[in-house]
C-alpha cells in the first residue's frame, strides 16, 4: 500500500493489461451466474446487432478494479466503485481474444485517509468505461 503522505492529486497507479478470451467469458459466466447468451453465442450476438460476442460489462468492471486493489494492497479498502459502460469489449473467437488496458490516477484527496481514483479502460484503442472511479481508504 502506498504511504498516504506520498499520494497526491495526479499520482498515477500502475497500468495493467488484461487478456479477455472466450475462455475468460465462460469462466466468468459460471462464476458470476450471468449466462446471457450474447457473452458466449456468436450467432445470437450477431442476430441482435453486435459485431461478435462481447464481454460481460461486469467482467470489465471487475478487471479494471484490480488496478485499484493491487495498488491499495487490501481489496477490503475499496469503499465505493462505479462505472458507466460506454462501449462493449468485443471478444473474437481466437487465441488472443481482446485486450483490456486499464490505468488510474488520483483525482481527489478525501477525509479519513481516503482518495478518489479515476480509471481509464480501453480495448482496441477505444474507451470501454466512462466515469469509472473508486474511493479507497489508504490511511
Amino acid at each position, binding site marked *: 500500500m502506498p504511504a498516504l503522505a506520498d499520494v497526491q492529486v495526479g499520482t498515477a497507479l500502475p497500468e495493467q493489461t*488484461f487478456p479477455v478470451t472466450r475462455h*475468460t467469458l465462460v*469462466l*466468468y459466466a*459460471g*462464476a*458470476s*451466474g*450471468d449466462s446471457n447468451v450474447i457473452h458466449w453465442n456468436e450467432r445470437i450476438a450477431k442476430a*441482435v446487432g453486435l459485431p461478435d460476442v462481447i464481454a460481460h*460489462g*461486469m*467482467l470489465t*468492471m*471487475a*478487471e479494471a*478494479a*484490480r488496478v*485499484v*486493489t*493491487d495498488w491499495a*494492497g*487490501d*481489496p*477490503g479498502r*475499496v*469503499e*465505493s*466503485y*462505479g*462505472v*458507466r*459502460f460506454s462501449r462493449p469489449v468485443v471478444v473474437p473467437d481466437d487465441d488472443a481474444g481482446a485486450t483490456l488496458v486499464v490505468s488510474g490516477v488520483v483525482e481527489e484527496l478525501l477525509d479519513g485517509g481516503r482518495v478518489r481514483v479515476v480509471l481509464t479502460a480501453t480495448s482496441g484503442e477505444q474507451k470501454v468505461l466512462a*466515469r469509472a472511479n*473508486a474511493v479507497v481508504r489508504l490511511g
Partner: protein
Amino acid sequence: MPIDRAFVGRAYPASTPYEVGREHVRSFADAIGDPNPLYRDREAAQAAGHPDVVAPPTFLTVLTNRFGGEGPIADPGLGLDYALVVHGEQHFALHRPVHVGDVLSSTVTVADVKDVGRNESMTLLTEVTDAGGAPVATLTTTIVSSGTAAPKTEA
C-alpha cells in the same frame, strides 16, 4: 412497449438469504484472473485484519444474478423486454468488506424510470444487509431499454 412507471418504488426482497461461500469467492477471483491471496487464504486475510477471506469489490453482482429471476427485471407486469436491455451503469457503495461466511439479505427497489431520447433508463437499488441487519452494501444498477420510450407528441 414503455416500462410501467407505476413500478417506481416497488421493492422485491430476495426470497432467501445468500451465504458467501469460500469456493465461490475463489472461483470468482479465478474467473477475473486475480491472484490476490486475500481472496483465497484465510490466514492472509486475517493477517490483514479481516475475520475471513475477502470478496472482490464487484462480487455482490452474484446476488443480482442469483435473485434476478424474482426481481423487477423478471416481473412480467413491468413490461420490460430483456432482449432490448443493456447494462448502462453500475455502482457499488461498500459500507464494509464482504467476507466468506457472511449471510446476506437483499432487496431490490425500482428507484427510477425515465426516457432518455428514444430509449428508457431504469435505475435499480439493491440494499444488502448482514445477518444482524447491519448495512453491507448498496448497489445502483442502471439499465437501458432500447427504443421503448413512448412516442413524443410535438409541442
